[in-house]
């Protein structure tokens, strides 16, 4: 069972539907203590980084405890940016800090927001992207982006090169919307669901 975090940023309908399409069951915890240790956790989200302010200290602690216990976590779009330390979009709001670095605005030398299908350049083998050919295209819609760090397994270019997929131990993130990225996107969700089914091991910080 996948825990799908609802913190009021965007609708969950699409993600829920895509999870069902790949044969996964999900639930939306109403209280932090309901997270427990599910098979996996997904933090979706669209919009402003400030929206993550709704993820209170109690929720953060539950999320971090689950990740510490080895539960795979996937952040989608804003949910991926939240895995980092923070974002210049809302400098006073703390990210989860599971990954080092901060998100920043894409240079406005081309159209920002970055909306549409763009390709993924794979940097190294990844469990999440397993089986996807290089250059697979996915649907993006965002203005801020994560830095290319050791956790970055795929990059995408729009004005600058940014991290479009991150992976470190049991922490995963995609800047695009897999639930809106046709077959390739469903393949990524399927991979996450498979990873979630495998045994969890306690992990150290990325």
């Amino acid at each position, binding site marked *: 069972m996948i825990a799908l975090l609802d913190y009021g940023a965007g609708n969950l*309908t699409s993600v829920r539907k895509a999870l069902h399409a790949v044969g996964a069951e999900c639930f939306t915890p109403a209280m932090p203590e309901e997270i427990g240790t599910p098979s996996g956790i997904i933090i979706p989200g669209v919009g402003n980084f400030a929206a993550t302010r709704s993820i209170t200290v109690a929720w953060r602690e539950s999320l971090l405890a689950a990740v510490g216990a080895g539960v795979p976590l996937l952040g989608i779009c804003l949910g991926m940016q939240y895995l980092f330390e923070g974002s210049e979009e809302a400098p006073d709001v703390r990210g989860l800090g599971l990954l080092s670095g901060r998100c920043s605005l894409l240079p406005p030398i081309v159209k920002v927001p970055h909306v549409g*299908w763009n390709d993924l350049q794979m940097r190294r083998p990844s469990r999440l992207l397993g089986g996807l050919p290089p250059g697979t295209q996915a*649907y993006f819609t965002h203005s801020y982006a994560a830095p290319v760090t050791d956790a970055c397994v795929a990059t995408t270019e729009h004005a600058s090169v940014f991290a479009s997929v991150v992976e470190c131990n049991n922490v995963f993130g995609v800047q695009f919307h897999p639930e809106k990225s046709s077959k390739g996107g469903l393949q990524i969700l399927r991979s996450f669901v498979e990873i979630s089914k495998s045994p969890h091991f306690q992990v150290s910080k990325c």
Partner: protein
Amino acid sequence: MLAKRLIACLDVRDGCVVKGVQFEDLATAGDPAALARRYDAEGIDELVVLDVTATVEKRRAMSETLRKVSAELFIPLTVGGGIRTEDDAAAALDAGADKVALNTAALEQPERLTVLARRYGSQAVVAAIDAKRTDGEYEVFSHSGRTRTTRRAVEWAREAADRGAGEILLTSIDRDGTRAGFDCDLTAAVASSVAIPVIASGGAGTFGHFHAVFTAGRADAALAASVFHFSEHAVADLKAFLHDRGVPVRLTC
């Protein structure tokens, strides 16, 4: 590289697609969900469902249509027509739409764009603009192109973007339904004036028209209805045509 998007539009009335339905396959004719699946399989990048239902009562059936359309669809879905209030937008998004397009409702109360962008994010808010050349200027028309507004297209597009719209869906009233080609002058004028993506609409007739609007017209995406109905391979053939001419597109296998 960011691909230029091809968007298919389904005009839906009382749950049925009413425009440009020329598929020979009777099993899918008129059924929005079946058509949506077919377009998805053919490689369309995005879908717009336009509600052309006349009455409020029948509009309530739109949520059910959207649910069916989005049930097996994993590409972005926009709904337009009849979105006026926050509740209308909420109902559409809950039913599976990713974006809502506002036209007359935004012209009447531009702050509606801001309200929706604050609640759902700019990526969910599309400003639909219908423009027509009058006295050498591009003027915005409301109420499905029937009412003059005296607003200029470029200025209204800029205001819509400032107010929180995440994309502009720009329709040329002069070209709509003519198959004479997109209005590249209008599209380029708006696309070069705003920082958000512009979807060109109205006038698609040939593959060359798409090439023109993506180059001279500076469009980020192009929307059409009937041109995609010509053959089962129209979307793939069009993408191959554009790709061969150096226009970045999403290639599907």
